[in-house]
């Protein structure tokens, strides 16, 4: 009896079965998380390649590297792959899948088969979009505005849109799965206010996924119906409404921003707490601010349309609501900062990313206030100011949090530690490169450079050269992680147990790397989250 127990303990979810089939037909949430990681990494670097090509074209004012149509396809594909096939699924599908059951003391998610299906859907969607790219590309911008997309574009609009449509079902299923799992499968004693904030964030995110994604699916179908059968829905030339598409599109796509950033905020709460060895300051305020963002996020879509022909008073209401959604984000930033106070602050790589996130997200959020301000938006709408703003939120926010989380849970996932020095270099290079890329774009936008321009007036060149230089540095930073992370799987220091001295079921109870069924016996929870009370020694928190 004891020997079989021992044997089972030694076995991790990575071992046991090795074959291709055991991975592609797995229902284990951890393996599905790893499958997502592989797929999304591919799409991230594909999207990154397009970004490099865009920045190279913009090195000079003349449109001389690519033809205009090629350039238009590049920024469209950059947007589609980065948003729909990396940013949207990144934190929920990779980290959420891997961690959610571990954090709540469950053996798996509520519907393991649906979970596998959602991976296949996202990958099928990605491959559709990939096919659209190989077949000749699509040039509508990731926003697919009608009537350009439905009547005028001659590129592979339907294939790309269908890819997003299919991947959307993956998103809905993941949302349903997480909601059911969080409601029904928490360990005994794990009350709502004992949940890690990452779980709260996943819950809020899942609500948006389930409520919002069907709207984009319907919208895409309507575009396809207009394009294929000439039914007038959006094109006024056919009797449609010229503004309707934008309402439907942003009704999903604004909340989608919160699908990306909310789980990233959940990661930051975990990192800040662990690397300060402190309870999160204002736990309930952070938890409820996630829900407030999820709800308010559905009421602000019109701020993308201040100059679109929407009425003056609609503009004012959407502006006011957009200011209100800034408050819960501000609450989070202040609470994370306060968590460090009187802590024991370690600057291990995940914490570097978390600190980078707080700084960059603060700038990203505050520049959002500029755009919510009606007077300023008239001028900077559709300019590089907007481009800079959402990259501060999406890259400075989501990508930083994703990388921070990936480093933090890497030893839990693979039982090996990444090389700390390389990771720190990479984190610093990414931070510097990022700022050099996108700070100049704020200035460019206010100066008057429109987005999606293949060629631009000469007086904008200096700032564009700076931006391209920054992008090269940023790209090197990402490539460095692409080298040392896989390297560490073979050569990294072996880790067992809890290398960070972190709290939470996934660190304190689950094996490293986890066994196939996560818990040898159902854990019961008797303490508040982030219970870092008590003395500790340097050896217990090795990475000080």
């Amino acid at each position, binding site marked *: 009896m004891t020997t079989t127990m021992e044997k089972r303990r030694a076995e991790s979810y990575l071992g046991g079965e090795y074959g291709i089939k055991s991975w592609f037909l797995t229902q284990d949430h951890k393996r599905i998380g790893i499958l997502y990681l592989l797929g999304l990494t591919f799409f991230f670097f594909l999207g990154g390649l397009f970004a490099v090509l865009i920045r190279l074209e913009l090195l000079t004012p003349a449109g001389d590297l690519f033809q205009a149509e090629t350039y238009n396809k590049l920024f469209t594909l950059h947007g589609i792959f980065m948003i729909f096939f990396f940013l949207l699924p990144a934190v929920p599908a990779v980290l959420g899948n891997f961690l959610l059951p571990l954090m709540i003391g469950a053996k798996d998610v509520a519907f393991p088969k649906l979970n596998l299906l959602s991976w296949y859907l996202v990958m099928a969607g990605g491959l559709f979009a990939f096919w659209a790219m190989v077949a000749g590309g699509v040039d509508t911008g990731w926003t697919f505005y009608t009537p350009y997309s439905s009547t*005028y574009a001659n590129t592979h609009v339907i294939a790309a849109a269908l890819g997003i449509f299919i991947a959307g079902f993956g998103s809905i299923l993941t949302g349903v799965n997480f909601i059911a799992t969080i409601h029904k499968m928490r360990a005994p004693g794990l009350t709502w206010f004992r949940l890690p904030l990452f779980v709260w964030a996943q819950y809020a995110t899942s609500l948006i996924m389930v409520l919002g994604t069907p709207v984009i699916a319907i919208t895409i179908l309507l575009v396809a119906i207009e394009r294929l059968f000439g039914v007038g829905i959006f094109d006024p030339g056919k009797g449609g409404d010229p503004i309707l598409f934008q309402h439907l599109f942003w009704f999903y796509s604004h909340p989608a921003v919160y699908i990306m950033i909310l789980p990233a905020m959940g990661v930051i709460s975990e990192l800040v707490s662990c690397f*300060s060895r*402190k309870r999160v300051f204002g736990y309930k305020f952070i938890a409820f601010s996630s829900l407030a963002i999820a709800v308010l996020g559905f009421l602000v879509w019109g701020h993308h349309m201040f100059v679109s022909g929407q009425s003056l008073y609609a503009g004012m209401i959407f502006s006011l609501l957009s200011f209100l959604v800034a408050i819960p984000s501000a609450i989070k930033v202040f609470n994370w900062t306060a968590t460090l106070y009187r*802590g024991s602050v370690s600057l291990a790589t995940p914490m570097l990313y978390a600190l980078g996130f707080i700084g960059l997200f603060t700038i990203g959020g505050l520049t959002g206030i500029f755009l*919510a301000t*009606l007077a300023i938006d008239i001028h900077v709408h559709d300019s590089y100011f907007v481009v800079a703003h959402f990259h501060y939120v999406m890259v400075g926010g989501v990508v930083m949090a994703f990388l921070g989380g990936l480093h933090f849970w890497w030893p839990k996932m693979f039982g090996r530690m990444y090389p700390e020095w390389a990771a720190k270099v990479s984190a610093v290079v990414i931070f510097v490169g990022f700022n050099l890329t996108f700070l100049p774009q704020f200035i460019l936008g206010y100066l*008057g450079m429109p987005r999606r*321009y293949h060629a631009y007036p000469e007086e904008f060149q200096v700032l564009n050269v700076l931006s391209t230089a920054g992008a090269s540095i940023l790209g090197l930073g990402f490539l460095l992680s692409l080298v040392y992370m896989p390297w560490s799987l073979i050569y990294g220091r072996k880790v067992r147990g809890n290398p960070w001295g972190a709290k939470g079921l996934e660190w304190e109870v689950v094996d490293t790397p986890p066994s196939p069924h996560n818990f040898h016996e159902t854990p019961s929870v008797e303490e508040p989250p982030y219970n870092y009370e008590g003395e500790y020694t340097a050896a217990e928190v090795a990475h000080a």
Partner: protein
Amino acid sequence: MFEDFSLFPEAASSYAGDIDAVYIFLIGVTVFFSTLISIALLWCMLRYRRREGHQAQQIEGSLLLELSWSIVPLLICLFVFGWGAKIFYNVLTPPKDAMEFYVTGKQWMWRIQHPTGQREINQLHVPVGEKIVLKMISEDVNHSFWIPAFRVKADVVPGLYSSIWFEATKVGEYHLFCAEYCGTKHSKMGGQVVVMDPSDYQAWLDAEPAGVTPVEAGRLLFENLRCDTCHAAGSGQRGPDLAGRFGRSVTLADGQTMRFDEDYVRESMLEPTRRVSAGFQPVMPTYQGQVNEDQIQKIIAYLKSLEPEVGDAAPER
């Protein structure tokens, strides 16, 4: 590459300074809060760095702090919202006495007509110190008319009129861009706005072939398309008399009321039976395919110019 390099755009319209003021205020707010957060983080990183013999002290949180960092940002937000909304209202509400220009966007050019009839493409000559309103519509996809030096922009969409107004304050040449992605040559859809002294503007107008004014062209179209058989005074009353109707409200057959504006005129020409004035039969044929956007704009200009007939009933409001 460093010629003309600058970090802040030229301001050349009456409201550009108002918009810049909010912008600069918000830069101040951003610098203040990001510095505050950065200093707090850096100080904690140094003061409470993890080291032998140093232990974290647990703190539960503080309602007072939570309230203050919710309420203070909220108050700043409400203030900036009100400030921005006030300027927005001004920028979106054209003054009554403005000169009316007509703009048509199409892939990939701007066609512009002056009130005196002169036409230009991708160039807009305007006199300094005059209030000018642009009435804009697109023939194909969405475009957006942006003059950064004036800090003004509006989307130009098919099937719906939009407008911007401005008063240029500085003589010079400024960029005109299309800001809404509109296809292959999006980045080439632009040109210059040339702001001139009123006397230079007059000289420019005199040198350009004027053709007919939009109002006159609209009158000719109104006759050639035989609109006047039903819509002129005493024409047998198959359709309403349109003199002096523009800008008033119309009562529809189903009892609803709406404004008799650019969009209503355009819709009534293209889909005449959709919203019929009360007291009339839906008998008007469509002019879809017989008139283009430029011609519709001229008919609108003509209808706007019509004074109510003498002895007409008091205007409905």
